[in-house]
């Protein structure tokens, strides 16, 4: 078996590869010197495709640079960002030679690009992979605004000038309309291209090439479940291919179960983005409820769900991209709003990096996020006691950060208004860091700036954090599996608290 490529771009010389229609589209557009925006889900073969397109461009005589913005270390300044970018472009185009840039132009991308281009007037292609990876909003806007400015000049620029020579391609999984200011976005002057799923025949070809075997019924079964999602398909095929025939049924079932459980971070990353945006969450919840949602014209949320890979359009309806995503979403209490929701055995979505980014105290944000993630992992593995502890810790971190961020006057007012607060022992009324969780929740609910309805758990949930203590656990003994409902409720409570505190913060 040659092997599958699960978490990296497929090397150029690897035979375990099937070409994708979008590669041909990219090649045609770039040869026509049109700027391109390639959007598609994560782990969908974008980088693999770009590597091949780069090779074809170079083969055709057009120098082509591929720059992965994710590989950039956080720069200290905008100038450093531009220098790094130009260096990467030069590495592909001129063997790394950069012409000197006038210090007065050091904040101009155009100057840096000119320094990185080979001499002459032949066209060049610059492909920017993971285009959303510039974290600093100001730099990101400046960077892409300056690229847009190059596009604007093209219509009237002189032959041989940078604006006429360079063709850009941007790739990633992002919302082009919000990544940078819409008015100065280069994405508006690009031809959009989608990656598209593998076809059933592609899946069979991939199997034959990577497993070095003839057709297998497991490939068709995997396709039935995950559609043409390259990463998920390869996960399943790889599991099956790694064992001998008699064990393949078991391997297939285990691989299916693993994916269904959501333990693979593919699901966390994907559904986490949905949960992070109420508009997306609403649409996906409707998908869960109705099976299909009428597509809306000029609605970018609908478009983004297709870019993310969760949904696909069929006629004028939006549907889940594959059965597995549908099953996963149906089993997630975070996406089901019906009475049937939140049944035992469901799967929670691991929160994204940015889930606690609104918190101003970086350390508490990190504590909240890691506790949250640990809780979700524990829940999905069936460890509900640990999950309860994790959710409790995360909730405590969120509340503590918020209560510490409000003014002392306001805090005093809230404490006074919180009639049920009972400060004992080392708890100090003016220092939330000394409070028990119960008091934090009570004060949080009090006016002014009350978290109305957000932190009001049932009595049974209130002391869950203590259940991790063996003595406490024994005193109120419940079997592990019986605590699933409490853990599920705790998850929802934390989510509500995160939403509300984030709303107040912003």
């Amino acid at each position, binding site marked *: 078996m040659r092997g599958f490529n699960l978490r990296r771009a497929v090397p150029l010389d690897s035979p375990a590869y099937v070409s994708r229609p979008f590669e*041909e589209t990219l*090649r*045609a*557009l770039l*040869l*026509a*010197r*049109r*700027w391109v925006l390639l959007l598609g889900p994560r782990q969908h073969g974008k980088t693999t495709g770009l590597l091949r397109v780069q090779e*074809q461009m170079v*083969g*055709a*005589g*057009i120098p082509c640079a591929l720059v992965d913005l994710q590989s950039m270390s956080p720069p200290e300044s905008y100038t450093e960002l531009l220098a790094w970018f130009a260096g990467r472009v030069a590495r592909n185009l001129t063997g790394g030679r950069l012409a000197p840039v006038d210090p007065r132009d050091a904040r*101009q991308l155009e100057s840096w690009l000119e320094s990185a281009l080979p001499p002459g*007037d*032949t*066209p060049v292609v610059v492909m920017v992979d993971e285009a959303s990876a510039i974290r600093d909003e100001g730099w990101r*806007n*400046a960077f892409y*605004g*300056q690229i*847009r*400015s190059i*596009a*604007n*000049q*093209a*219509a*009237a620029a002189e*032959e*041989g000038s940078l604006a*006429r*020579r360079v063709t850009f391609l941007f790739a990633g999984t992002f919302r082009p309309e919000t990544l940078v*200011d819409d*008015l*100065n976005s280069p994405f*508006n*002057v*690009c*031809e959009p291209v989608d990656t598209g799923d593998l076809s059933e025949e592609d899946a069979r070809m991939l199997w034959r090439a990577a497993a070095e075997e003839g057709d297998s019924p497991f490939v068709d079964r995997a396709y039935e479940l995950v559609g043409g999602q390259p990463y998920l398909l390869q996960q399943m095929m790889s599991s099956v291919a790694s064992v001998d025939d008699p064990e393949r049924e078991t391997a297939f079932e285990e691989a299916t179960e693993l994916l269904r459980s959501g333990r693979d971070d593919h699901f966390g990353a994907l559904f986490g983005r949905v949960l992070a945006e109420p508009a997306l969450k609403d649409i996906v919840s409707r998908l869960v409820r109705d099976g299909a949602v*009428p*597509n*809306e*014209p*000029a609605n970018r949320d609908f478009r983004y769900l297709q870019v993310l890979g969760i949904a696909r*359009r069929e*006629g*004028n309806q939006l549907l889940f991209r594959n059965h597995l995503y549908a099953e996963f979403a149906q089993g997630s209490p975070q996406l089901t709003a019906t009475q049937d929701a939140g049944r035992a055995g469901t799967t929670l979505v691991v929160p994204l990096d940015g889930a606690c980014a609104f918190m101003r105290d970086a350390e508490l944000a990190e504590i909240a996020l890691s506790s949250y993630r640990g809780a979700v992992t524990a829940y999905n593995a069936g460890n509900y006691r640990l999950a309860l502890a994790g959710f409790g810790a995360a909730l405590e971190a969120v509340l503590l950060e918020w209560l510490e961020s409000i003014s002392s006057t306001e805090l005093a007012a809230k404490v006074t208004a919180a009639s049920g607060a009972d400060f004992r022992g080392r708890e100090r009324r003016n220092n939330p860091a000394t409070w028990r969780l119960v008091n934090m929740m009570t004060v949080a609910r009090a006016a002014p700036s009350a978290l109305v309805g957000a932190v009001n758990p049932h009595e049974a949930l209130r002391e869950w954090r203590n259940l991790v203590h063996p003595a406490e656990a024994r005193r109120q003994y419940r079997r592990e599996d019986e605590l699933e409902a409490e853990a599920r409720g705790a998850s929802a409570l934390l989510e509500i608290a995160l939403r509300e505190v984030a709303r107040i913060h912003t």
Partner: protein
Amino acid sequence: MSSTAIPTGPSKRLEAFRASVVRDLYSPDNFVDWDEVERELEGWAAAIQALQRLIDVEAQSEECLAEVIEHEPLTVEVMRRLLAAPQGAAFADGRELSAQVPATREGRASLARLLNEIGIWRLLRPSAHVEDLVRVAAVTSDAERRRLRRLRSVRSRIQNLVQDVLDTLRTEPGLPLELLAPRLLPASVRRTADIVVALEGTPIAAIRSVFLSSSGGRQQREFTSTYPRAQRELDTIPAAFVLIADGRGMADLPDAVLENLFDSIAACLTFAQAEDGGLAHVLTEAAENYGRRRDVAIPVDRIIEETLSETGMVVAEQLPVLNDAARLSLARYAQLHPELELNLGPLGESLSWSRAEDVSRATALLSRFDAPSAIRLFAGLLEARLDTPRDAAESAWESALVVPTADLALPGRFLAVAYMGPVDESLFRAVARAGLQAAPEAKLAVLLAPAAPAWSFSDRRRLQSVLPANVIVVTAANLVGFARGADSPRDAFASIMLEQSDLTKVSPYVVSNATPQRMYYGRDTEEATLLGTLATNSVALLGARRIGKTSLMRHVIPSLKGANFRPFFGDCQTVRSWRDFGALAQRWWGVNLPEEFEPRHLWELVSRLNDGSGHQIVILLDEIDQLLDWDRQHTAEEVPEAFFRACRAISQEGLAQFVFSGERTIAGKLWDPYSPHWNFCRPLPVQQLAREAGEELLLRPLNALQVVVEGEARFRDQAWKVSSGHPQILQSLGDRLVRNLNERAPNERGRIGPSDLEQIVGTYEYSEHYLETYWGQATALERLLSLYVTEGAVSPADLAPVLAAQGANVGEGVVTDGLRMLELYGIVRREGAGYSLRAEWFPTALSSYGGVEQAKERFLRSMS
């Protein structure tokens, strides 16, 4: 089987044809489709009753008429029929007798007034019987359907006749004739044939039926050009072209046209002749000769052809016939070959090539291919200059830069390579790379070679698709064709380009960026207004994205210079602060200004830009909205909006004028009567193109690519309807057409028609693009308002309460602002106190998403 219906001699043949022509084919039993007339009347029963009641009982007043219209909307359709305007009508004063019943009371009153003015009461007199009137009107409408009934009847009659003839002939030995699908014919004649008859699977005859109710230039061209050409194409199979033609138009055709037709095709029969055994006779003959026409290769023609090829000229004396006959033969040859550029001597005594010298040189290349000569000849035919490429080191071939007059299909310069050896893939790749180096922007390189490679269409297409430039093979035979052909060599070369190219590389349409000069059409009115205003005032170009503001700004710069202005253009897309603006001024105009640029420095800027010539300075700032947002949020020395205020002061002092372009922000400032900038500059809306310019934008590039648009009038109508003149939508449409052509075989790329447009417009993606383009920047409320406008003209005063009743409680002022913004986006147009739909395809586009009502519900829900 033989026929007595068709004499063989030329004069008798004509006489017999004329004698059997019928002028029309109607029969009393289907002259009027009474069933359909009565069905229509039934459908209008309520409307007829309402109108009858109006004239019997109520007063003949506009008020009463408006009420009747409100309660029985179908009355409008009935009255349009009575007025012989079933599709409605537009009037010079802007009013419309539209297909839709106005939604507002005002609109209905206005419609009643219009009907009164047209004279509806002259029909609806007190004593009139409305049903009878409407019945007469319905019979008039039925007259339009009569022609279609006749056409269907003709087609069915011929189909049955052919089937009968084939059934009869099949009973005879050796004649197992069968029908074949026309698509199996060559593409060039496919559309000319209605029915194809085959013998043992091979076409032997193509039959076309025509019923000509009148004769005109276009119809005559079909008989003098289209059908003879079709026969010549069919001769290559070979197959006979049989025309069954009748009608008044045929009777009126001049003798000369008919005689020429009889000579040029296998057979031309009237319906009666065909039914009287003529068709059976023709098909039998075609079958016996396997489709060959008798005497098709006339020996004299062959001699003319050979002599022309050999010597470039043929004189009457050279032909082995009497002198008069020889001169007639030469004249006839020239007439039969309109595709050749021939000179016929004044008395027909000689025939020669118009480009005799080029033909001679090209012909010489056929026998001995000389690379430098081939390049010189090619450039000469294109009337292009030759230049030396920068890097001509490749010694295996001869090369030169060809510098023609650039147009929408031909680049300003491209590499031509002449190579003696065989053409293979590696040569193609090498030529493409050399072409890229020599003329990077051309996306085209020409390979002149003795012969073309024998590649399949798919192989050539695959190869072209991976090359950085299309490599177009021009053979010695092509050069001969260019030199001999009636088309200009430039057009003939463009046709070859069309066949061989990867068209995605050469599509002239610009779908995502500012339009270059070569694709700029229209905007004359806007440009004139701009030039006329700038002497005394500044201007703000207001329009949606992708509507062409930047293109207009860039295009007007030479005109400004010509009118003694000093224009300075600045792209403010990346300008997000005053400081950014200072940097822009330094970068674009070379003016050194303080790094911490502030609005007060604008005076310094203007002073530096002034060269003392006395020419008015004009500063054109594209996409100003971001800078104005910054300006609004910051103050300089406690002055709010200091930048815009400074511009205003400079403009009022006459030191410089400004041209701004923007969208919502600047429009908001200029429209708000409470804004200090309310009357600062003249707002100039940039909306859709005028119809003529819009059509040019779509059609000219196609024509330049040598693509013929069939059914052009309908094509133009449709393109207008589905775009309303939005330049980006038109360019996108053109680009899709070119991409679709790219999927076709080379010989099928030369023609498109309304069905190609329909195919694109019928896709979900087109609706999506249309709505994204028009609605892209509109707010939810604005989108909702546009949905109400799709149902009929509305005024803010009417609409605000309707919205409130639906739970969207916005004031009339907000509705007015929203409609005004929709007007800026070109979705609606202002009409009196109300607004009507301008982007007329909107409801159709929305139907892909469930329709207007569903969309309304969605937006109302989101706003409640």
